[in-house]
């Protein structure tokens, strides 16, 4: 039981770290603001959720893991709102999205 629990926790924590690393790379690699907002709003959110649930699995069935579930719910509810607020602001102030190289030439 404990071995299974630890294995699940390690898999979730490793997966969360991987997604957060990919989110960081995406913020640097993607071409414009709106696509970067995709990287920060989705990949990072999934990474944080996996990481925190991994920690909750590692803690077991205690009050601490219940608090971790509270943080998970909070992050899952607020991160799309924050991404939307930033992206809407950028659109209103007239930032032009990037439509790909081919279309700019044609």
């Amino acid at each position, binding site marked *: 039981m404990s071995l299974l629990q630890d294995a699940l926790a390690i898999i979730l924590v490793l997966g969360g770290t991987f997604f957060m690393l990919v989110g960081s790379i995406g913020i640097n690699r993607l071409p414009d603001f709106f696509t970067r907002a995709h990287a920060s709003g989705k990949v990072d959110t999934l990474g944080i959720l996996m990481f925190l649930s991994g920690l909750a699995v590692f803690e077991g069935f205690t009050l601490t893991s219940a608090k971790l579930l509270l943080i998970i719910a909070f992050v899952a509810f607020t991160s*799309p709102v924050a991404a939307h607020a930033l992206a809407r602001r950028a659109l209103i102030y007239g930032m032009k999205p990037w439509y790909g190289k081919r279309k700019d030439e044609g």
Partner: protein
Amino acid sequence: MCKVVHATQPFLFFNQVSPFSTMNNTSLWLRHRGLILQILLLSAIWLILSGRTDAVYLFWGVVSVAFVIWLSAKLHSIPLSEKEPCGTTRIIIPRLIVYLFWLVWQIIKSGTYVAYLILHPKMPIDPMIVRFTSKQPNVLARVILGNSITLTPGTLTLDIEDDLFTVHALTQEVEEELVSGDMEARVARLYMQDCTSEDMCCDIELITSGRGR
């Protein structure tokens, strides 16, 4: 999320003796469903946060929940938007729970999809802006739809004006899946009894080049 629901049920007069005692209970439940749910949710959050069951800390918990309820009860006089007053926002709870599980699955799918796009050496993205009109019953349904669009693979809500959604999509397949109206029908089914996915999403406009705006 949690709001006082103004019931549209016919009012039961208290001096009339109701033949069914359970009916009175249901009407109380229906009339104050939002408030009761809010109190239960806040009490559960307090118990999780505090973790102490001494009498003193339970008393402080009651004080805190009462304070928060009192302060947030003033919020309900603020209208939801300019055109709609505090309308009926009665959501169907079992469908909401099923929808939340579907949303968790969508979060996992969207994270892996965008991570695949980022790590692909050629980065096969083809970004575009989609504007469409979706007939949702009220403001809360529009907000749920907007948040769900942000969480589903490859799409990001940019703006909501009344019924007009402006969405940034990463690739062509994602845009087709969005416009098919599957998710809009799911959100609308949280409120209405039946609707089809064809007539949910109309007036689709694609902006795929810099001259569009």
